[in-house]
């Protein structure tokens, strides 16, 4: 029964997404996305880095690519792509820190690709992508990232990925150094901390919409529309169920 339900959900979502994708391709319409302050601010970070001569710091958190936090980490990689491509083109590549070993080769590869796209020599490698600590050592990771922020004299702090309440330690260093912060995580406790330290938060699904906001390919926009329809369906079911329980 469970297997059938899972298959049905996947097939139904896939079908809906396929329909949205075809519609998106056929109409080629511009989708008006709800403006999110965090993505708006992200677009100005490279300019600030170029003007100040200081790097943007981005941390991809502690969610691995082989665990259930994979989608959040992939979204973090999209944001890193954006910062790396624009940064390398303007000679201001970001500093990237990761707290899970599987993220390191991917992040390193994305930065190499950004250098290649910007037709810059690969004089890179001098610690632009750094592994800080394994995902079992949350506080060691937080302490390491805080030290990197301080030592690299970053201009802004972008934390996107799976991060818990330990991000308070990182953001405290950022606040002391007067850095602008953009924080996105899927962890509700981490989000509570993020809300307290910055106005530019990406709450759960907003982080997962990174690709649609930053690249805007038809497949990505279609999946955002699918998500909205699914949310509407689930909300109606939950509300209907609650009313039914109340009446009966």
């Amino acid at each position: 029964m469970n297997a059938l339900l899972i298959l049905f959900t996947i097939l139904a979502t896939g079908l809906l997404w396929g329909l949205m994708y075809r519609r998106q391709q056929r109409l080629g319409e511009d989708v008006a996305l709800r403006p999110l302050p965090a993505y708006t601010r992200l677009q100005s970070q490279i300019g600030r880095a170029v003007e100040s001569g200081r790097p943007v710091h981005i941390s991809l958190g502690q969610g691995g690519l082989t665990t259930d936090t994979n989608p959040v980490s992939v979204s973090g990689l999209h944001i890193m792509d954006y910062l790396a491509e624009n940064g390398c083109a303007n000679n201001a590549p970001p500093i990237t820190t990761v707290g899970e070993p599987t993220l390191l080769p991917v992040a390193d590869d994305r930065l190499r690709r950004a250098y290649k796209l910007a037709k810059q020599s690969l004089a890179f490698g001098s610690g632009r992508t750094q592994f800080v600590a394994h995902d079992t050592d949350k506080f060691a990771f937080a302490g390491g990232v805080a030290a990197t922020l301080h030592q690299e004299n970053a201009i802004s702090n972008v934390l996107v990925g799976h991060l818990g309440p330990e991000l308070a330690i990182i953001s405290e260093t950022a606040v002391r150094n007067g850095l602008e912060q953009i924080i996105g995580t899927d962890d509700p406790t981490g989000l509570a901390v993020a809300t307290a330290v910055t106005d530019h938060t990406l709450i759960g699904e907003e982080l997962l919409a990174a690709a649609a906001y930053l690249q805007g390919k038809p497949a990505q926009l279609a999946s955002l529309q699918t998500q909205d329809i699914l949310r509407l369906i689930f909300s109606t079911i939950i509300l209907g169920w609650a009313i039914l329980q109340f009446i009966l």
Partner: protein
Amino acid sequence: MRKRSIPLAIAISFGLLTLLGLTFSLPELSNLLLGWAGFLVAVALILGILNLFVVHLGRLRHGNLYSGVLVLSMLAVFALAFTDSNGITTNGVETVFSWVQAPMEAALASLLAFFLVAAGFQLLRRDRSWSAALFLGTAVFILLSQALLALPLPGQQSTQILSQFRTLINNVIVTAGMRGILIGVALGTITLSLRLLVGMERPYSDE
């Protein structure tokens, strides 16, 4: 062309195999794939440790003393692991963990509460809106009520009201918010996973 299609084919086929293994409860298939993934994670961890060592060695060359401490500590722990495995020392690595790493992490964990309080006050300084006041007010109420409930308050009724109000915040408001966030994350995860499964999303390729 081949450079693009081979990783894509591997990613799609392994994604589908994992999905089949988990959906139809095929433990042999799931365990085999998990074993391979575990091996890759171990290789990535070795790369990560080498990266950490090289980065801090570079910083040490620029005169960063903290990086020097990290490099020396890494070498010392490696040496201890070597001597432990050869029977020269006993439990050297475990001793370092329980006497150095565990107390340091505990110290950082205890500092977290102070960082959170500081963050709360920064919020009120930065954003003097009703939502910031509500955020901070709720946090202070939950902290105080936790302490007050442990104390003998005058009158049974006041304790009961405090406890009920606290339960209402925790079980209804906080839980509802958290579930909302988690449902949103789950929906986003499903659609992103679908894009990964059909190869529309390729974090492993040059596109």
